[in-house]
């Protein structure tokens, strides 16, 4: 499902509790999500993980884990240590890796790891209805959301924030950040309550250098990709 910024998710299923030190464990629909706070240094984190045992560890081994690195900048060396000193030695099944740090995501992807919410359950969700991520907050500079499906942001999207979605993106408030809707292709749309973004990305199309001189700047708009062209409509209710 979703790869999101901090505090966007509510725990699903099992109760939330503290693991070793500051590591937060969350029960989810797909397994156990282990959240590693950025404030814990790399060495301390590994020490804490080495002490991870008991029922929680057994549960995590059984159903798989998602490792959420939050905004931590992951180095190659630390990734290798994390794998060799925790994942492999502990025999954990890692379903996916999560982060909202762009460099960390790039490293994980270039190393061939699955990022974002685990794919397990996606097809089931699609059968049951649209795979939408609804965020009831604003996105601040530096916060990044990736989602396989539609994203609905019930807040503002400030400059420096990013949303990447394989489906449509709807921003209820002011849209000043970077949005890429339909990132895997297809005809999707971006809607905003107040459009003030310097660029939009829809499918394989990029429209940049936008500014206050365009007619629909600051207005509520729907931008869609239709027959390989970007079409902008003012959103009037």
């Amino acid at each position, binding site marked *: 499902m979703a790869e999101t*910024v*901090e*505090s966007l998710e509510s725990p699903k299923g099992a109760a939330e509790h503290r693991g070793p030190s500051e590591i937060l464990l969350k029960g989810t629909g797909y397994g156990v999500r282990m959240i590693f706070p*950025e*404030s*814990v*240094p790399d060495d*301390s984190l590994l020490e804490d993980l080495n002490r991870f045992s008991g029922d929680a560890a057994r549960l995590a081994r059984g159903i798989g884990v998602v490792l959420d690195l*939050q*905004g931590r900048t992951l180095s190659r060396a630390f990734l290798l240590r994390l794998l060799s000193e925790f994942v492999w030695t502990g025999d954990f099944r890692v379903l996916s890796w999560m982060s909202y740090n762009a460099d960390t995501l790039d490293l994980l992807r270039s190393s061939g790891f699955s990022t974002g919410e685990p794919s397990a359950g996606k097809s089931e969700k699609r059968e049951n209805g649209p795979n939408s991520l609804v965020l009831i907050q*604003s996105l*601040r*500079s*530096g*916060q990044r959301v990736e989602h396989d499906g539609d994203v609905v942001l019930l807040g*503002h999207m*400030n*400059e*420096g924030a990013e949303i990447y979605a394989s489906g449509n993106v709807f921003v209820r408030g002011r849209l000043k950040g970077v949005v890429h809707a339909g990132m895997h292709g297809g005809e999707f749309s971006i809607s905003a309550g107040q459009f003030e973004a310097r660029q939009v990305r829809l499918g394989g199309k990029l429209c940049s250098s936008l500014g206050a001189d365009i007619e629909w700047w600051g207005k509520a708009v729907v931008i869609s990709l239709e027959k390989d062209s970007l079409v902008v409509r003012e959103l009037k209710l």
Partner: protein
Amino acid sequence: MDSRVIVITSGKGGVGKTTTTSNLAVALARAGRRVVAVDADIGLRNLDVVMGLENRVVYNFIDVLEGNCRLNQALVRDKRVDNLFLLPAAQTRTKDAVSSEQMEELCALLREEFEYVLIDSPAGIESGFRNAAVGADEALVIATPEVPSVRDADRIIGLLESMGKAPIRLIVNRLRSQMVRDGEMLDVTDVLDILAIELIGVVPEDDSVVKSANRGEPLTFSDASPAALAFQRISMRLTGKDVPFPKFDEENGRGLFAGIRKLFGMKS
């Protein structure tokens, strides 16, 4: 002792973190509070100079953490006002000289001694900022009314929120009313509209800030300049007093207060 640990931060450099820390520390101490100003900018310390205490620095907080001295040996007492202390940073070390755990330990020690622990954060979002913020309960974010500063403040607020700091309050520094009137500077309403956090004070641009930094005498010691009065008002709001926001920009009838009323949808 009831103690509050407050990190003063911004993301962007040069927006007035150290000036704010020194002036609030003096104002709070003059109001009878027991205060320590902690310079967390390891390697680029300035708070001692701005507070006029550079000649009296012997040890620094890295010495405390490394066991080279006791906390009270590193604390520099300001003789001009009771209850005001400075805990300097090391100038010859780097930000990596301290860990998050050590900063939390230091804050725990300071909580036992002081009512207000004001931590002057370095610029940036890396370990220096994180270490400065890790032991704090709450945060004051400084932003000047410029787009880069506001964007960096937005980034910092997101990080502070993810670290669980609350409340996170905003100081708009170096506001130039004439430029706002001329439409060449963001006004406070614009900044608040983007950052969407509680405003605790607005400090107007004031030449006396530069003079006071060079003299090593924070404005709130005695000065009645606009900036000094603004810092005093902020210190009072920090202690929970309800201090009205003055109208810096009355000439065109669009004062700050009117802007805030507009922001919350109230009639002027």
